[in-house]
C-alpha cells in the first residue's frame, strides 16, 4: 500500500514537472492555430481555431513571409555546413588523437583558449573579411561562417577517438597501410556515434542562429533569408501584432524535423559524450 502511494506520488511529481516543461511548447502549438494574429493575453487556448497561419506560411508568400524559400535556404546551408564541419572536425580530432607530432599539445591548448573569445565581437570583422571576397549576402558566405571555424570544436570528437584502441591501427600499420588509409578504413567506421553527433549538431546550427545571419544577409530581401531571421523579424515592433501566431506556426514547423533529428541524435549524443569516460 505504502509502495503504491509512493509510486503515485513519484509519478505525480514527474507529471507536474513535465507539465511545467511543456506548457510553453503547448502554448506555441495551440497559438499556431489561433484565428487571432496578435498575442492573446487573456486565454491560453485560442478562441477561434484555424489553419490559416500555416496556409499563410506555405501558400501565401509575400515580401514578409517567404517560408518555403527560407526553409529551402536554411536546408541548403545546413546540408553544406554539416558536411564541411564534420569533415573538418574529423580531420582535426583524428590528428590530435592519433597522430604524434611536435607542438601537438601546444596547438590544443591554443585552440581551447582561442575558443574563449566572444564570437559576438568578431562578427563585424568577419563581415568585412567576407565582404572583401564579395561573400556577404550570399549563402556561400553563410556556409563559410557556420563551418569554417568548425575545426576548433574538435574536443568531444577527439575524446571519443582516444577511446578507440590503438592496437587496431598498429596492426594495420604493420600490414603497411598508410596513415590516410588507417584514418579512412579503421577510425572513421569505428567513430560512427560521434560522427552522427557531429553531423546533426552542425546541421542544426543554421536553424538556430539569427544574430550572424541578420548581419550577413542584410539586403532586406525576404527571399534571401533563413528561417531564423524570418521568424525573428516577425516579432519586430511593427509586426508582432499581425504576425505572432504566424511566428508560432513557423516555430512549430521547424521544430518537427529538428525534434526528430534530436531524438535520433540523443542516443549518439549520450554515447559519444560519455562513451569513453565510463570505460575509464
Amino acid at each position, binding site marked *: 500500500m505504502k509502495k503504491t502511494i509512493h509510486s503515485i506520488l513519484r509519478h505525480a511529481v514527474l507529471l507536474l514537472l513535465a507539465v511545467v516543461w511543456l506548457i510553453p511548447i503547448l502554448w506555441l502549438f495551440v497559438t499556431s492555430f489561433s484565428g487571432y494574429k*496578435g*498575442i492573446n*493575453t*487573456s486565454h491560453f487556448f485560442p478562441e477561434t481555431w484555424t489553419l490559416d497561419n500555416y496556409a499563410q506560411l506555405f501558400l501565401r508568400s*509575400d*515580401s*514578409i513571409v517567404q517560408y518555403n524559400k527560407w526553409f529551402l535556404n536554411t536546408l541548403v546551408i545546413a546540408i553544406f555546413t554539416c558536411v564541411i564541419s564534420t569533415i573538418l572536425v574529423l580531420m582535426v580530432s583524428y590528428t590530435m588523437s592519433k597522430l604524434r607530432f611536435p607542438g601537438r599539445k601546444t596547438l590544443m591548448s591554443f585552440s581551447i583558449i582561442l575558443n574563449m573569445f566572444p564570437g559576438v565581437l568578431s562578427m*563585424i570583422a568577419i*563581415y568585412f573579411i567576407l*565582404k572583401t571576397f564579395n561573400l*556577404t*549576402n550570399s549563402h556561400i558566405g553563410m556556409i563559410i561562417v557556420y563551418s569554417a571555424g568548425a575545426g576548433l570544436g574538435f574536443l568531444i570528437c577527439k575524446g571519443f577517438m582516444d577511446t578507440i584502441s590503438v592496437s587496431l591501427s598498429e596492426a594495420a600499420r604493420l600490414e603497411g597501410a598508410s596513415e590516410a588509409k588507417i584514418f579512412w578504413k579503421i577510425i572513421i567506421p569505428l567513430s560512427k556515434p560521434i560522427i552522427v553527433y557531429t553531423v546533426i549538431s552542425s546541421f542544426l546550427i543554421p536553424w538556430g542562429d539569427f544574430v550572424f545571419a541578420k*548581419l550577413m544577409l*542584410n*539586403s*532586406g*530581401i*525576404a527571399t534571401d533569408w533563413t528561417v531564423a531571421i524570418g521568424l525573428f*523579424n516577425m516579432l*519586430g*515592433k*511593427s*509586426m*508582432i*501584432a499581425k504576425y505572432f501566431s504566424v511566428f508560432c506556426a513557423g516555430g512549430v514547423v521547424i521544430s518537427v524535423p529538428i525534434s526528430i533529428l534530436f531524438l535520433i541524435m540523443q542516443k549518439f549524443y549520450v554515447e559519444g559524450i560519455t562513451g569513453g569516460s565510463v570505460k575509464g
Partner: protein
Amino acid sequence: MKKKVLATLLATAMTVGCLTGCGGGAAEAPAAEAPAAEAPAAEEPAADAPAAEEAPAVEAPAAAAEGTDPIANLIAATTGTVTLKVWASEEDQDLTTKLLDEFKAAYPDVTFDITLGAESESTAKDTVLTDVEAAADVYAFADDQINELVKAGALQEVVANYTFDVVNENVTGAVEAAAVDGKVYAYPMTADNGYFMFYDSSVFSESDVQSLEKMVEVAGAAGKKIAMDISNGWYIYAFFQGAGLELTLNDDGLTNTCAWNSPGGTDVAQAILDLTASNVLVDMNDEDMAVQIAEGNVAACVNGTWRAETAAEAWGENYAATKLPTFNAGGKDYQMSSYSGYKMIGVNPHSANVGWAMLLAEFLTNEAAQTARFEARGLGPANLAAASSDAVQANPAISALAAQAAYATPQRVGGNFWSPAETLGQILASGNPDGTDLQELLDTTVEGITAPVE
C-alpha cells in the same frame, strides 16, 4: 531660429531651381506627364548631342534657356541596366511594389533592375550604419535618425529637384525635419510620425480630454487605464518640453544641451510621480498598448497613427483622437508638448546610380504617391496638396496630429539622450522606489544626456 533655417532653405531651393531651370516647370507638370516630355530624347539614344537639347525645347521652354535638361541628360547617359535597391517598411511593400512598376513604366526606354527589400523605417539607421556601402540606394527612415545618417555620410544632399519642388510642396515642418544645417537631405514621405491622444469617447467627453488630471479622474472612476510609454525618452519629452524646459542638440550634431534639471524640473518630475501614483496613468510599451486596447482595459493612450487601426477596431464609433492634454506641475497648467515625426526617403551617396535613385525617391514621395499611401494605409501626407484633400482632413488621427502640431517640435537630439531619459521615465513611473531626491535624479539624468560622446 527656425525661421532662419527655413529662409536659408528656401533660398537654397530657389538657387537650385534657377540653376537647373527645371524646378518650376516640372513642378507644375504632374509626375505622370514627365516621362512624356522625356520620351523624344530617349528615342534617339546617346548617338547625338543635339537630341538632348532639342527635347526639352519642346516641352519645357524654361529649360531651353539653360541649354539642357538633366533628366534627358541622364537618360542619354544611361547605357545598360540601372540597378537599384530599395528599402521600404514591411507594411509598405505592396504599395511600393506598385509605385516601382509605375516608375519603370514612366521611363520606358530605360531598363531597370529594381529590388525591393523590407526594412522598418524605425530601424533603418541600424542596418544602414553597419555598412553604408551595402545599404539600399533608396531607403525609408524616420526623421529622428537623420542626424546620425547625415553624420555617417549615408544621405545624399538634395541639391536639386527634378519632377517637383520638394521644399515648397511639402509642409514646412517636414522640410525642416529633412534638413540638417540648412541643407535638405531627404524627401518627406509622411507627416504622421508624431504622437497625440487616442481616446474612447464613451468614457471621456471632449472637455475631459483637455486636462490629464481630469482624464485620470474620469478613467479612475470608470475603472479604465490611460496608457503612455513614460519609460521612453521620446514620450517623456512631452512633459518637460511642455513645461518649457528645453532639450536641444548642440552645433556639433552629437551632444545635447538639456535644461530638465533647472528650476521647475522637480515640479514636472513630481507631476509625473503624482499622475502615475494613481495607477490610472500607466507606463506601457507600444506592443502591450496594442494588446490592452484590444482587451478593453485601456480607454485612452498617447500614441501615433500606427495604433489608429487597433484603436478604431476596439472602440468602434467611439474612437476619437485629439491633441495631448495639459498637465499640472507646481500649481500651473502646461500644455504637453510632443515630437513631430516624419517619415522620409533618402538616397545613399554610395549608390552607383545616384541620379536615378534621386528620381525614384522623388517618385516615391510625390503628390500621387503620398495620396496613394494615405488611401492604402491611412498615413498622413506631408505633401501640401495631398494633405488638403477632404479625406485626409476627415481622418481623426491626422487631424489630431494637426491640432498637436502647434505644440510639437522636430526631433533633434543626440544619441546620448535616449538611455538616461528612458531610465528617468522608468524610475518616475515606478514611483521612485529608492526615494532619490528629485533634483539629484534630474541632475544625474541631465549629466547623462549632456555627456560628451564617447
